[in-house]
Structures are given as structure tokens and as C-alpha cells.
């Protein structure tokens, strides 16, 4: 039968009042309390930053770009979250409408980088070209998005 290695018991655990072995380390604990205090302040800052939109989905993350004649206005998120979907909203002015339709071309660089999972409203027609996709949307008289 294999033997198990043994060693004598030593009083290695610090005592309270020289009688009760507790192993308390108040010096470490004070450092830990200071650390957790700083940690919760940091977490508080993270929450405030999140509410402001520093990590996307908030007032600071929302941005708008438009052409000079306001034919196209794009509302997008300045800060995106990795592996999370986001919404790109495009408003077309009346000058973008031709024969009751809007034709909208999206370059390959955009499609590849961002993908295009869902369009609202659905395009009437989409044509895949060499370096992008052309979408055609039916359009009544009023401006559409």
C-alpha cells in the first residue's frame, strides 16, 4: 500500500488575543476596502458614460450627416458595439424621387464592413453590381426614409 507523505502541524495562522487562530489580515483588508471603493467609483463612471452614450446607444453616440441640398440625411451611431446590430436611418428629400421611385446605391466597402441585414421598408428591387448593391424603393409624393 503506498504511503502518504506527512509533516508535523505548525502554528502558522495568526492569532487574536494570542488565543484564537483566525488568520485575519487587517492590513490587506484595508487595502482591499480602498480598492473596492475605487472600483465602485469606476463602475459608477462606467454607468454614467453608458447613459451618456459613450459606449453607443445614447445621446453622445447619435450623429447626423447630410448633403448640402438636404437630398439625403443619414442618422447613424458614431460609436458602434462589437457584434451588436445597429440602425442606419436614411431620409430622402423630394429631389431624390424620380418617376415615383428612389434609387439608392450602397458601395461594397459599406456592405462588407457593416452588412445589411434588414431594410425597412423593403426595397422593390435590389440589383447586385460589381462594386455594390443598387436598391430601388417605390415612393409616393411625400419624402420617404
Amino acid at each position: 500500500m503506498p504511503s502518504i507523505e506527512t509533516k508535523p502541524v505548525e502554528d502558522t495562522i495568526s492569532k487574536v488575543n494570542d488565543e484564537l487562530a483566525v488568520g485575519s489580515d487587517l492590513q490587506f483588508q484595508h487595502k482591499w476596502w480602498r480598492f473596492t471603493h475605487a472600483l465602485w467609483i469606476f463602475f459608477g463612471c462606467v454607468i454614467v458614460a453608458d447613459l451618456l452614450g459613450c459606449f453607443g446607444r445614447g445621446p453622445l453616440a447619435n450623429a447626423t450627416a447630410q448633403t448640402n441640398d438636404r437630398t439625403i440625411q443619414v442618422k447613424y451611431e458614431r460609436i458602434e458595439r462589437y457584434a451588436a446590430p445597429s440602425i442606419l436611418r436614411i431620409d430622402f428629400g423630394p429631389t431624390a424621387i424620380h418617376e415615383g421611385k428612389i434609387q439608392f446605391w450602397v458601395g461594397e466597402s459599406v456592405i462588407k464592413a457593416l452588412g445589411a441585414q434588414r431594410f425597412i421598408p423593403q426595397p422593390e428591387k435590389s440589383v447586385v453590381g460589381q462594386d455594390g448593391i443598387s436598391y430601388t424603393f417605390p415612393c409616393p409624393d411625400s419624402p420617404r426614409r
Partner: protein
Amino acid sequence: MHTVLYATFGYFFLLLIVRALSRRPGAQMTPFEFVIIFLIGGVIILATMGQDHSVTNSTCAVITVGFMHRMVSYLKTRYRRFGAFVDGTPLVLLKNGRWQHEVMERMRLNDMDVMAAARTKAVKQLSQIKYAILERNGGISIIKKQQ
């Protein structure tokens, strides 16, 4: 690949949060602590698994967490300082019949918590206690005064 990284991050992040929440969630679990544990666990699972809910992905996540746990357990026994970081150290709450106010306040404990532990040792009142120790697992050990 992502699942392993997310599970590793999730494990250490959860460890940090639970440690920073003070020690009560370990042993004296009230409904108040249950809410915290389940809610945080649920949120971490969502981020770890992402869109991939396959058996392969969840198996990899579970194995990763298992490995992390094994590694932390080994480091805890090998390095006492690391053990103190992960589990904390025991803290004296009541010494020679006197409350250790700073410890009680910082650990967010009150006399009711100590008395609850004392009752399990057939101690009828607080004045019968010589020492009360908050253990690393969140339990409170009671040492009675000699009669």
C-alpha cells in the same frame, strides 16, 4: 474562439464583482442576495454565448469556466496572497464582547446577522459571545464566553 475568451473574461469579471459586493452572497443568502447572483449570472451567460446557442458552444464555455476554476483553486492553495485576493481573509466582528465597528460597517453587517449565527450555536444572547468571526465563505463563527 470568442466563446473561450468571453467565458474567461466573464469568469474573472463575475469573481471581481461578487468579491467587491462584500462577502454576504457566499453563505447567509437572503432573497436580496439571490436576486443579485441570478441576475448577474444571467447577464454574463447572454454575453458569453452571443448568438451561437449550439451544444458545441455551450460545452466549450462550460469547459473554459471549469479550467478557470481549477486554475484559480490551484493558485489559491499555492499562493496565500492570491487566496486572500479571491476569498478574502477572516475578519473579527466581535472581540472580547466588543463590536469591531469599522469591520461591521465596511462589511455591511449588523448585530442581527451575528445573532442569527449565534442562535445556530444555541447562544441565547449577544452578551454570551466572546468572539464572532466572519469567515472567508461568508459564514459567521461564534465562540462563546466560558461559563
